[in-house]
């Protein structure tokens, strides 16, 4: 168990090499991957999120912790799949049509993955048809829309409207975020939620899939 504390610390401190090495030795020692994920790794990323919210961590610290989480996840993922483990939820994420920016979207994706979600990253300049396709083929629970520009924010409403027109709006949760996006705007366009930053996106996603 002492070793597992090292994994927790390695993720919180962004030490990817140690996180990977400890995950490998834990798996080799027979520690159930689900236990590693749920009792060590996700709580570690939750702590990273808490530190970010408290202004003790900033973007670099978030990124290196997310990298450590990713390296450890790569070790345990095949074992999770083999054991039939299910993610906290599936999220299709993308930057909306007309917008090429991806830094914020990538940060949110990294934090959601660290929070136990499976991420389907649709990239940038993503239209409603691609989000609908992801919903239909990947059984996603949440669609996450990102925009950096005031001029591309209206695409968020168009995507929500397309989900309505397709008759599937009530089958999936849609969350929005990005520099110009506000909670008020999210409400106006009929989104299910708005996140101020990458860390709070995890809390929001959990609440929407009932995993909070």
């Amino acid at each position: 168990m002492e070793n597992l504390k090292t994994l927790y610390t390695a993720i919180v401190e962004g030490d990817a090499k140690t996180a990977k090495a400890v995950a490998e030795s834990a798996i080799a020692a027979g520690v159930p991957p689900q236990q590693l994920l749920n009792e060590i790794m996700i709580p570690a990323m939750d702590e990273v999120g808490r530190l970010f919210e408290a202004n003790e961590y900033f973007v670099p610290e978030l990124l290196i912790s997310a990298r450590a989480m990713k390296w450890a996840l790569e070790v345990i993922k095949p074992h999770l799949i083999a054991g039939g483990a299910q993610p906290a939820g599936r999220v299709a994420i993308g930057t909306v049509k007309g917008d090429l920016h991806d830094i914020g979207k990538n940060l949110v994706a990294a934090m959601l993955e660290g929070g136990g979600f499976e991420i389907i990253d649709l990239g940038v300049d993503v239209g409603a048809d691609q989000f609908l396709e992801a919903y239909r083929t990947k059984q996603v629970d949440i669609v996450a829309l990102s925009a950096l520009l005031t001029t591309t924010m209206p695409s968020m409403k168009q995507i929500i409207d397309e989900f309505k027109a397709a008759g599937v709006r009530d089958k999936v949760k849609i969350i929005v975020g990005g520099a110009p996006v506000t909670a008020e705007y999210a409400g106006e366009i009929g989104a299910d939620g708005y996140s101020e930053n990458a860390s709070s996106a995890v809390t929001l996603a959990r609440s929407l899939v009932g995993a909070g």
Partner: protein
Amino acid sequence: MNARERFHAMMHYLPRDRAPIMDFGFWAETLVIWQDQGYPAGADPDLFFGMDPQWAECGGIVGLWPEFPEIVIKDRGATEVVQQKDGAIVERGKFLGSIPRHLAHTLQDRATWAESYAPRLRAQDPLRFPGKATWAMLLEEWTRPDRDYPLFIRAGSLYGVARNWFGLERISEIIYDDRPLFEEIVATLADVSIAVLEKTLGDGVRPEAALMWEDMCYSGGPLLSPKLFRDILVPHYKRITATLRRYGVDIVIVDCDGKIDALVPLWLEAGVNTMFPIEVGKWGGDPVAFRARYGKELRLIGGVDKHILAAGRDAIDREIDRLAPLVEEGGYIPTPDHRVPPDVPLANYLYYLERAKSVWGRGLPNLLPTGRIEAALVAV
């Protein structure tokens, strides 16, 4: 009072005839859309809108020299993949003004730094300046006693350019994986800036301000923790600002962007005393609040909520009246925060300028008229 004298007086809280009437430009789409609303195609916006003369920049090259060749790698219709002059591979819109998306970076680690960047950052490279004759001509213009526009000397960047060379994710990793490399890059950038400043200022140029570029804050705050900023960047900012002050340049502007609250006291500590542009954003950046908190040592540029320009005349009136006392106090040049977006009707912008000229500009006859189609077309 000319624009040069007015800028100096404004930034030093000295008596002045009125505030400078300036803007921070427009999104590329804005001027195109405005053509349907009466803006003359191809016109010079400063002439059309009757702005005071913008500042001019002086000095040598404080960045990479030589730059990388700009190469279009792939044409994707509305966008193109390009190797930029800074070595980053980006996808950028061909027609719309926006921040390009970074796809790959030449700078990755210590080896690529040594191979491709350090040789382009030799502080004493004479090619950072033009040939003798051209330099003499420039010096003559910059030192002309009757120069009537503000002159800013380029003072470089300690984080922003390195972030662009690496990309945000990689530079964030480098700071932790190889901190000595990051420190070496910051020190090198400062060395280059100081060498170029010494030569330009030593040749007698006395600009009204120095201009640095960082773009290092976003809607959530700084891209670097205040602790790392203080430990790694502040000592080198101090070297640069000390050089400037030896030559009497006491206004040091940083192009900062975003939610800057956590970095303002550290920039002030480092001798960087003018934040530009104050972005209002959803975090409510407010020049009045900044002044109340930091006092007159902090100068400000920007801070006019661009969304208010779209909201209508009453909202514009309220914003102009709200900022008027700060304009009157000085140390503050109001401009729409970070370029006028295309959802602002031209009529609203013209109204904003009329009101700005009337209130902040005191309606003086030395203001240029707004909407001068004839003057603008002369420049076409």
